[in-house]
């Protein structure tokens, strides 16, 4: 099992967001998280990578609990969150090189240049990220997927702000990844048909609580 989420409970600002949530992601599987705004998709990603700690439950990557991973983590997944963590005053190329270093990959310039071609960013590679359009920024972010050599991709709304052509390219990228044995968990609002993908529907939880039942200190945290 590449990713395993076992009975996770999570409160965010006193609101229950995950109530006994379970998920299993196998090798070569593409899973699409679908849910209305505020259902908890981004929260789930943050929990998986260990940025947020669930109040209860277990998360396993490759059958190892995430708390025990730390430095090994960066070889296991590539997470593209909503905030793009690109430095405005570095060029596209410099941004990617910086990312390659911290994500534990080893790549030469040639490979970077080739991967920039995929989204036709080669001409822009010496431009500062501050001077890119919204979609171009997103493409820089997605280029990381081409560079990354990880098995598990975690993509938070990867198609946001992309033009039709780039959406197709990204879809193909994900499908190819699955073919090569990689797994992908992505959140999405659009009506896209990705081959062999499985959809998971997240519902916002509505649970009204009874005041008499506050019996432990954790209840009123």
């Amino acid at each position: 099992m590449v990713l395993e989420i076992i009975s996770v409970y999570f409160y965010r600002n006193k609101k229950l967001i995950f109530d006994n949530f379970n998920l299993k992601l196998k090798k070569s599987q593409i899973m699409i998280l679908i849910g209305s705004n505020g259902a908890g998709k981004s929260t789930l990603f943050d929990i998986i990578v260990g940025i947020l700690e669930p109040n209860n439950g277990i998360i396993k990557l490759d059958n190892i609990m995430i708390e025990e991973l730390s430095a090994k983590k960066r070889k296991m997944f590539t997470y593209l969150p909503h905030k793009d963590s690109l430095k405005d005053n570095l060029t596209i190329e410099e941004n990617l090189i910086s990312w390659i270093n911290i994500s534990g990959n080893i790549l030469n310039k040639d490979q970077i240049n080739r991967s920039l071609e995929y989204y036709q960013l080669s001409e822009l590679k010496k431009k500062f990220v501050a001077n890119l359009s919204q979609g171009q920024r997103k493409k820089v972010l997605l280029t990381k997927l081409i560079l990354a050599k990880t098995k598990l991709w975690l993509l938070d709304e990867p198609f946001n702000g992309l033009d039709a052509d780039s959406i197709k390219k990204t879809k193909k990228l994900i499908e190819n990844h699955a073919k090569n044995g990689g797994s992908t968990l992505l959140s999405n609002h659009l009506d896209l048909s990705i081959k062999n993908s499985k959809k998971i529907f997240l519902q916002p939880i509505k649970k009204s609580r009874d005041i008499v039942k506050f019996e432990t200190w954790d209840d009123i945290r």
Partner: protein
Amino acid sequence: MIFKFANPLKFQRFTKQIQPFALSLSIIFLFFGLFFGFFRSPPDYLQGETVRIMYIHVPCAWFSLMIYSVIAMCSIFSIAFKHTLADIISRSCAPIGACFTLATLVTGSIWGKPTWGTWWVWDARLTSELILLIFYISLIIINNAYENKEKGDRYAAILAIIGIINLPIIKWSVDWWSTLHQPASISKLSSPSIDNSMLVPLFIMTFSLFFFFISVLLLRIRGEIIQRKIDVIKFSHVR
């Protein structure tokens, strides 16, 4: 652990019973303390009648330090075990401590004018006490700066732990640097260098303020628990 047995409901009931008891003790002690302080203790041969400020100043000063240590202990506990009660206690303590600190500063200044001839000197103890006040106010602000109470608690706890360094400085600054302020004369480890006729009202006042602190604290804790319950219900309805 005791907290396993006591649930918030029981705790609330318990505080409800204790609170009026503490308040009445405080009032009784206050009455006796003022009586002894004003009528049964002699004026100082150097300072005259102004020495009577001591009966407020010294207990307030002690409590300003004690309450901060309570907060600091709760903060350590809260960071280590994430227990809600620790957060609630430190949150309830902060404003009370700030009031005691302010009282210390004000009474000290008033006392300083006749004895030292000035409202304020840059003496190590006075300065560190001022910093203590700033810490208290910062704690209150941080506690309330977030929509998410848990976050406010955690940050306040970190700040409170950082601020522990200030306590020994206040306590022993008079010994480390030669300063204007009175060195420890009551809270010395050996026998206190002060006459019993002054010591008695001082201790009575201390008890009075102690019970006052306890009763206000319990009141605030109860309010805090109720507030949190309301929050849980309110937020759990939000989509």
